[in-house]
């Protein structure tokens, strides 16, 4: 299962000759640990401190939808946004193609489209193996190691590489000594080298090197599913009012075959009262049923002199009759980051010192825990409230000390709550439940109100020389029906299976007959031609044969209608050559699927699974989405200045910032200033 907007989880059956989820994900772990454990750490750097008369504050509210925003502004429910619209301007903001957060924010960061920055999706495909790979970063282990008595010692350091190309606007500002603070911006992990203050956002892994794997301990054996995505479920037993369990940690790169590390812990249950005491390492704390712990630092020992430190929190879901304990994904500790989190390195430590441990994982709220039922709606909201509270405190801190240059501040909760709670405002959602909806229908509005409060605080701080912008990377729509694109390709003769009887059982195209397959889809919007001399088993010749095939498939997709509703599924199938410019085309899909409102690629498709049906209802709590056609879901753009450009786009904002500081706009930027 792969979730849009960062929460990558996969349902893959484990077979001996098959790459499973853990194998796929673990690549990014060990070398990262080695890298962080290496002695050569980046030294503390000091950002440029040139005082500027002009100042810019940009609030990045991920996923805030212009239609919802306008409606609530018109009703007077969002006074700060309304004030900004009246005193300045409000436009929809053209999003990226495809409108996925890593792509969209890369457009914003670089002023380019994917052809320039090279980020086309959450995941790309390796044309050699047809296997998905992370699009935004690459982790490699130490190239040379020495083996001594079952231990492996690195002779060189590992590496974490940011795959986004192009210079970020704050890097260009740095050339002119204009200070910037860039908080949690997506598509910037590991943080691009700079002396500016930056903290990495979406794309930042947990300590396992994944986008977030929680641990769930239960005495209810029916909940234990080894194939579940985004979680490890452990069956535990209550013996003598005690539960003994292990918290899995990262693999140990210092030992041969990299065995998984773990930490033992004990939970003591009161025989009658719904309270437990948890003892783990030097922590000992009591939690009531339905209560969250604060952050706990956990050390995973590798060798006697080396350990990796992470932070997690605990939630006691139930004490009796069944015992259920949730432990959040283990975040990288900002006080002692095992992987690069910030520039300068001291910035994450400074924030930790000021506020204590905080969520460092790219998208902190655990959407897969809600999807899988480890957390219910209320519990998920409680977790996201913790995220939001942390963000708001740090925002206050950064806003108060901001006096020069640019402050960019990002909020993820707007996006995460719309993904998970859209079903409560959409009576047509397959998961609409009137009772639940009555309870949670205001969740999305409430987070817009929080955004309004943040904007109000910002406007009060802004003097006449401060340009305030409130932006989002895309809007939101319902996700009611899921489209199995690879099944559609197969039904239309573009994709062939080795064994028809096994259809739907294999993932990662294990059942695909590449010698007779012309096209395949991977990722959330990408469709690829199985091209000769590009794909390892390509059969379609580049040039006319490929071009004709691309247009043929695109045309058919745009004509295809959902037999159940009669609606178009794909509003627009974009041909890559027509929408991208630049030289970073290695991972470009050939067709980008622009889905109609209410439709999205299925959960099975992005990782190469080919079920028997072409269309199905989306039965997932992840019920709002934005991986549709860009024109369906533009973002928002409000500013306390008149916006001169009629149809501003995300990639216009980078040159806009540069222009405000009278900095020449580099030639590779495709956007143009909006003021």
């Amino acid at each position, binding site marked *: 299962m792969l979730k849009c907007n960062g929460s990558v989880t996969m349902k893959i059956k484990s077979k001996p000759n098959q790459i499973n989820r853990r194998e796929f994900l673990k690549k990014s772990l060990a070398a990262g640990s080695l890298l962080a454990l290496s002695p050569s750490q980046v030294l503390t750097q000091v950002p440029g401190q040139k005082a500027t008369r002009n100042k810019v504050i940009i609030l990045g509210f991920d996923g805030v939808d212009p239609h919802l925003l306008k409606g609530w502004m018109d009703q007077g429910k969002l006074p700060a946004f309304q004030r900004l619209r009246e005193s300045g301007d409000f436009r929809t903001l053209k999003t990226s193609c495809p409108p996925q957060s890593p792509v969209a924010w890369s457009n914003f960061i670089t002023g380019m489209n994917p052809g320039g920055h090279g980020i086309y999706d959450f995941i790309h495909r390796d044309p050699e193996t047809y296997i998905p790979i992370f699009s935004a970063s690459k982790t490699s282990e130490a190239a040379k190691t020495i083996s001594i008595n079952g231990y492996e010692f690195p002779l060189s350091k590992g590496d974490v590489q940011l795959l986004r190309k192009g210079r970020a606007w704050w890097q260009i500002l740095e050339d002119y000594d204009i200070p910037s603070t860039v908080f949690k911006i997506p598509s910037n992990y590991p943080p691009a080298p700079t002396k500016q203050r930056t903290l990495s956002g979406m794309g930042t892994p947990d300590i396992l090197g994944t986008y977030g794997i929680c641990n769930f301990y239960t005495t209810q054996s029916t909940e234990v599913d080894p194939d579940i995505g985004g979680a490890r479920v452990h069956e535990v037993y209550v013996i003598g009012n005690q539960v003994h369990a292990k918290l899995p940690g990262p693999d140990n790169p210092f030992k041969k075959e990299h065995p998984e590390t773990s930490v033992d812990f004990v939970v003591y249950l009161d025989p009658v*009262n719904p309270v437990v005491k948890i003892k783990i390492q030097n922590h000992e704390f*009591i939690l*009531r049923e339905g209560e969250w712990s604060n952050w706990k630092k956990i050390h995973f020992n590798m060798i006697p002199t080396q350990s990796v430190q992470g932070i997690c929190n605990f939630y006691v879901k139930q004490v009796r009759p069944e015992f259920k304990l949730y432990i959040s994904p283990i975040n990288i500790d900002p006080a002692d980051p095992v992987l690069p989190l910030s520039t300068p390195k001291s910035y994450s430590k400074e924030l930790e010192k000021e506020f204590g441990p905080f969520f460092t994982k790219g998208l902190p709220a655990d959407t897969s825990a809600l999807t899988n039922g480890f957390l219910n709606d209320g519990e998920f909201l409680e977790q996201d409230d913790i995220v939001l509270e942390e963000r708001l405190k740090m925002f206050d801190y950064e806003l108060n000390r901001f006096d020069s240059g640019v402050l960019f501040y990002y909020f993820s909760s707007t996006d995460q709550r719309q993904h998970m709670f859209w079903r409560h405002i959409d009576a047509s959602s397959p998961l609409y439940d009137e009772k639940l909806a009555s309870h949670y229908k205001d969740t999305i509005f409430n987070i817009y109100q929080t955004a309004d409060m943040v904007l109000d605080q910002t406007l009060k701080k802004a003097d006449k020389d401060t340009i305030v912008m409130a932006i989002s990377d895309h809007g939101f729509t319902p996700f009611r029906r899921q489209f199995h694109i690879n099944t559609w390709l197969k039904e239309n003769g573009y994709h062939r299976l080795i064994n028809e009887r096994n259809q739907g059982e294999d993932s990662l195209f294990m059942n695909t007959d590449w010698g007779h397959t012309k096209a395949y889809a991977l990722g959330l919007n990408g469709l690829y031609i199985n091209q000769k001399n590009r794909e390892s088993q390509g059969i379609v010749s580049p040039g006319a044969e490929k071009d004709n095939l691309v247009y043929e498939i695109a045309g058919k997709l745009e004509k295809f209608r959902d037999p159940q509703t009669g609606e178009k599924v794909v509003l627009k199938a974009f041909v890559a050559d027509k929408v991208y410019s630049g030289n970073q085309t290695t991972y470009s899909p050939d067709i980008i699927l622009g889905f109609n409102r209410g439709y999205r690629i299925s959960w099975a498709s992005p990782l190469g699974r080919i079920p028997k049906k072409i269309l199905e209802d989306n039965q997932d709590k992840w019920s709002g989405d934005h991986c549709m056609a860009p024109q369906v879901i533009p973002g928002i753009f409000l500013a306390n200045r008149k916006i001169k450009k009629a149809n501003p786009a995300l990639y216009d904002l980078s040159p806009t910032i540069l222009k405000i500081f009278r900095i020449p706009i580099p030639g590779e930027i495709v956007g143009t200033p909006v003021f």
Partner: protein
Amino acid sequence: MVHILNSVLSKFFEIIFLPFQNISPWFGMIFISLLTGLIMLFIFKLTSDQEGIKKTKNKIKAHLLELRLYKDDLRTSFKAQGHILLSNFKYMKYSLKPLLIMIIPVILILIHSNFWFAYDSLGIEETALLKVKLSDDFVPTELDTEITANDSIQIETAPLRINEQNEIDWRFSAQKAGVHEIKIKIGEQLITKSVSVSQNPLSQISPFKKRKNIMDQLLYPLEKPLEKNSFVKSVEITYPSSGFHVLGINFHWIVVFFILSIVFGFSFKGFFGVEI
């Protein structure tokens, strides 16, 4: 007797640390280390055979020189090494008496300093556990429990009883600064435990209250002990542990204390004419 000693000493430490409570604990640590270094120096001077130590040290130096001069003469070298060894034993003999005398005030200083430097007091809204340990033949779930405190302390959970460990725990949070009291009724027994809530960087913390016996009274001198025949063995509050950060490494206070005391002792030995 022990109670009087405890009262006097804890008052004494309260007075000497009074000027340092609102500033970094480093100042209090430097002060107590300096004081300890000087005390050790004076005890050493008064109780040791200064002349004997001086002579022994000179002999060692002489034999070291002998070793160097006659390094080609195996017999003389061995003889010199033997003399050095003997002189070392003699030096240790001279040091033993002052060390034995010194150990008493140093242990008392360590015991009392531990309650100033080993723990951080609770901050406002900070939570901690209150842990009550019972005698082996008392089962927590078979006893009625009641816990009360004034509005400065909020008891946040029902009792967590671990029969296998004869333990009853509660979680509480601090609401107001000050030294507060929690009252715990277990069965028919009523016990109290003090709780320190403070914003001061340095404050006196009493994490344990134990059943009455001389050793525990000496080790946990800040609160009146539990009755000798009480079925409650101990009451503990889990204060956060404290330490001293040097170049990003957290050191236990005792390490810092000994290093500083020794440094101060050696720094002033010339000034006070002490032969060590």
